[in-house]
């Protein structure tokens, strides 16, 4: 019996799982559809809660897969179960026979232009959290004016929103908003910064401290209320309307920049593979795990495993822990069968 394990997706999760499985003696075949490894982590500049550089996390993950066979720019053409093994045909012409397939296909950012009332792609001064990370990394974005005086952050864009198709909370965007708000204040000390939130979900270790610092040291103003609409002024600024639900009064403010906290949804490219062998998905669109507490890494189909953001919004520590847990689950699966 060969010890092949097919890993689909070379983001942080796929990298960590591959490294662990390789160390355990498995013959890992990792594929990544893009031209580079790293998934979304490669797109971020700094990470909450401490502001560690994303590169500092990504580089060791990439270094650790030393010895793992991986293919970039490679997709799955077909996957099907032959006897007890999965037969996976790759776009580079290679066919892999593997008893275990690990899905680490991750997430897609919610397409913010779908929330038309926020004007992403329509107004000049509206960007997303992902755009802002890119701006931090490159210092370039024509939509960020030279000296913004007022900047707003909109929480829950495409999350907690049935009309947008996603009822769930994306978990990482409150912390991202607070992190980015502080970074903007540090870059533009004269700017006044507002976060429009419904609930602040500062669940992780160090997150509440980050929130307190945002208030105390950076003077970020938190306004409880969902932004209802955005319009453009003659000067190309954006006029934002919300209710300050703490006082129960409508509120308006004109901003030089509006940042939308787009949420996470199951990656289309992962779903496409899931559909080839009918992997179940839940109401929220993410893959259904065999159990919700005891077996988070297994699919109800024998030999299919999950880790990372393809089973719901997750932080990096969550994601990396799942990667390790999946390696153990796969190891147990091989041992049981032999």
């Amino acid at each position: 019996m060969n010890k092949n394990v097919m890993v689909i997706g070379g983001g942080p999760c796929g990298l960590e799982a591959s490294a662990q499985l390789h160390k355990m003696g498995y013959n890992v075949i990792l594929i990544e559809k893009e031209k580079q490894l790293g998934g979304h982590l490669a797109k971020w500049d700094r990470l909450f809660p401490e502001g560690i550089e994303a590169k500092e996390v990504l580089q060791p993950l990439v270094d650790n897969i030393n010895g793992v066979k991986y293919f970039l720019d490679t997709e799955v053409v077909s996957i099907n179960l032959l006897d007890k093994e999965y037969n996976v045909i790759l776009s580079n012409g290679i066919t892999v026979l593997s008893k275990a397939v690990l899905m680490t296909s991750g997430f897609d950012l919610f397409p913010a232009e779908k929330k038309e009332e926020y004007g992403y792609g329509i107004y000049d001064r509206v960007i997303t959290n992902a755009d802002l990370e890119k701006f931090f990394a490159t210092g370039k974005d024509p939509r960020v004016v030279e000296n913004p005086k007022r900047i707003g952050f909109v929480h829950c864009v495409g999350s907690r929103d049935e009309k947008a198709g996603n009822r769930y909370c994306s978990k990482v965007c409150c912390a991202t908003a607070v992190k980015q708000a502080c970074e903007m204040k540090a870059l533009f000390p004269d700017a006044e910064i507002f976060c429009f939130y419904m609930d602040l979900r500062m669940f992780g270790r160090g997150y509440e401290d980050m929130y307190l610092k945002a208030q105390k040291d950076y003077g970020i103003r938190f306004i409880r209320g969902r932004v209802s609409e955005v319009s453009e002024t003659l000067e190309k600024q954006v006029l934002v309307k919300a209710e300050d639900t703490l006082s129960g009064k409508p509120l308006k403010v004109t901003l030089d920049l509006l940042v939308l906290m787009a949420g996470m949804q199951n990656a289309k490219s992962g779903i496409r593979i899931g559909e080839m062998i009918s992997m179940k998905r839940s109401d929220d669109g993410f893959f259904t795990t065999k159990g919700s507490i005891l077996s988070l890494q297994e699919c109800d189909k024998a030999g299919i495993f999950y880790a990372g953001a393809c089973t719901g919004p997750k932080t990096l520590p969550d994601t990396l822990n799942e990667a390790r847990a999946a390696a153990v689950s796969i190891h147990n699966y091989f041992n049981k069968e032999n």
Partner: protein
Amino acid sequence: MDFGYSLSPSSRIDLDLFDRNRFNTLAEIEPDVLKCMACGSCTATCTAGKYAKNSLRSAILYLQNGQDKQALEYLKPCMLCGKCFMVCPRGINTRHLILSILKIYNNAK
């Protein structure tokens, strides 16, 4: 054009018109005002609040929204007993804060 109704000017919060100078002065001598997380403990425990409209939480919020007059209304019945200081989870010296608010905003009127 008159449609027969209008927003009363005091009801809508317009952060564009908010003159921040006074709030900034307050934040300078009472930086802890920025730490309020609107939990409402102070209001719930207020000795004066049982009999009159008194709420430090609301007062802070109105100051942040540039509605100074309403903010002061929410502190009028305050007897400066300091009970709210004991319950504030963010450790704000609320009594001291109230005194500073009254000093800065009453003087400027």
